[in-house]
């Protein structure tokens, strides 16, 4: 053991640095988070040319190469349909925190009612036998919201009985 450690000392240099970034999120994201925080609403953006509703909202419709502005934002349902799922079960360093991300966690791709694009987010289920493509899912909102994506910590599977 110690022989290996000695070898590593000789052959390796460690380098660690913080490289903080201030990302511009754009006007549409600002509006999205305001509505999320204040009104528990989920907004998408609709292309003025082709009518495609994008979630997450963004400034450009890629199909038309046309701008989407604040005026093009539309309400979306907090409910959607599961199109695919997985349970992430391996360790890695989360670049957002610099620490390890806790696992396992459920992760899904789904389409919100009213949106034309799919999106991915956490799912509050870690048993893949309980998940099925086609299940209905619903956003879970935090009671105390800050105005970031964590205000929807995860989506939950709507049980059949509900």
């Amino acid at each position: 053991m110690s022989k290996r450690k000695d070898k590593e000392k000789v052959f390796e240099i460690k380098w660690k640095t913080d490289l903080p970034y201030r990302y511009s999120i754009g006007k549409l994201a600002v509006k999205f988070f305001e509505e999320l925080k204040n009104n528990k609403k989920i907004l998408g953006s609709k292309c003025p040319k082709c009518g495609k509703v994008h979630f997450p909202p963004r400034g450009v419709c890629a199909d038309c190469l046309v701008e989407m502005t604040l005026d093009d934002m539309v309400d979306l349902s907090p409910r959607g349909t599961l199109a695919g799922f997985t349970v992430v079960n391996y360790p890695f360093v989360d670049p957002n925190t610099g620490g390890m991300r806790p696992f396992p966690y459920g992760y899904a791709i789904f389409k919100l009612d009213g949106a034309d694009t799919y999106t991915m987010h956490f799912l509050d289920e870690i048993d893949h036998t309980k998940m099925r493509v086609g299940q209905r899912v619903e956003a879970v909102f935090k009671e105390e919201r800050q105005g970031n994506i964590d205000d929807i910590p995860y989506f939950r599977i709507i049980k059949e009985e509900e």
Partner: protein
Amino acid sequence: MPKNDVAVVGIGQTKFRSKRRDVNIPEMIYEAAKMALDDAKIEPKDIDAIIIGNMDHFEGINFSELWCGIDAAPGYLKPVVKVATGGTTGSSLAICGYYNVASGIYNKVLVIGWEKLNEGGATTGIITAFDPVWERPSLAGALGPLALMANTYAAKYGITPEQAAKVTVKNRSNAANNPFAHLQMPNITVDYVMSSQMISYPLRLHDCCPQSEGACAIIYANEEETKKVTDNPAWIQSVATAHYYTFGTDTIMFDLPSAAIASKEAYRKAGIKDPVKDLDVAEIYEPTSWSELSWTESLGFCKSGEGGKILDEGITQMGGELPVNPSGGVLSTNPIGATALVRVAEAAIQVMGRGGKRQVPDVEKALSMGFGGSLWTEILILGKEPKR
């Protein structure tokens, strides 16, 4: 009509390993560069330009080409350019090098792809490829989305984990014939794959590619220079690239639309009407076993949903009508910045008949594929004859 025909005249690869503790970055790259130069019997000073790339964040070195292109390759006082496009880096390098020569600007170009990714964190780095607001908080590197793709593909067509496991068995036993491959497992079984740990449902550990360190180098030359150095080149018959939405998961991803678009274009330019008949071998980019099943469909090797079928029928096995990944593919070797370039190198090796134990007999045309980014695809078709 292209201005100049372009051929691969020299190839170098390092033996890919999980960790290359014995060399630093330039030393590792030099191994591949020297091998390619020796292979082509071209003097370092006679190289006109260096195109070199990796994924910056994995090693934490900015403008790595200005260091490695000079210290590990004959780039001093020459053009040194970096092309870096994520998983497709290797194929983007190959395509850039191709245009360097096809344009007539340079005659002999050295293209190098490399990665020493265990010096940094690959998954962590990959997460930063995605949108910081919407995607990063939940994204689980490359395997998260790939698991979702496998899940939706399986749900749509009823593909089973056994069928996926057979891909790993095929590729990692193929790798045993490839002296450069990282994971060589001649005795691997379906049970072995299916009893490995579940990493991200439905992906098990052995459904996923490894993380490898190493470098790959190829040398391109135009027609005139090719004649001087070899009578057994591999000609680039067509190249095609198709990109996709920034949010690659805007559309449901049980197949790879960019692969369908790029391959159609590449086939058209290379005069390929039926890929299974007209191609003799394919080196495709399969980050997971499920990917190979799905993407052989997108590449037009079979109808949608039949990726498992053509594997079961032996079409994509060694000895089949269109062997896929005789080198072992990405499931056996994955030095990310080099991976797609290794596909080009292996396709060239097949065309040149230098594949040794992994050689597919009588290769006239070979396909190589790169994949990465927000679900992009790049295709290069190589062949015994030049384009024109």
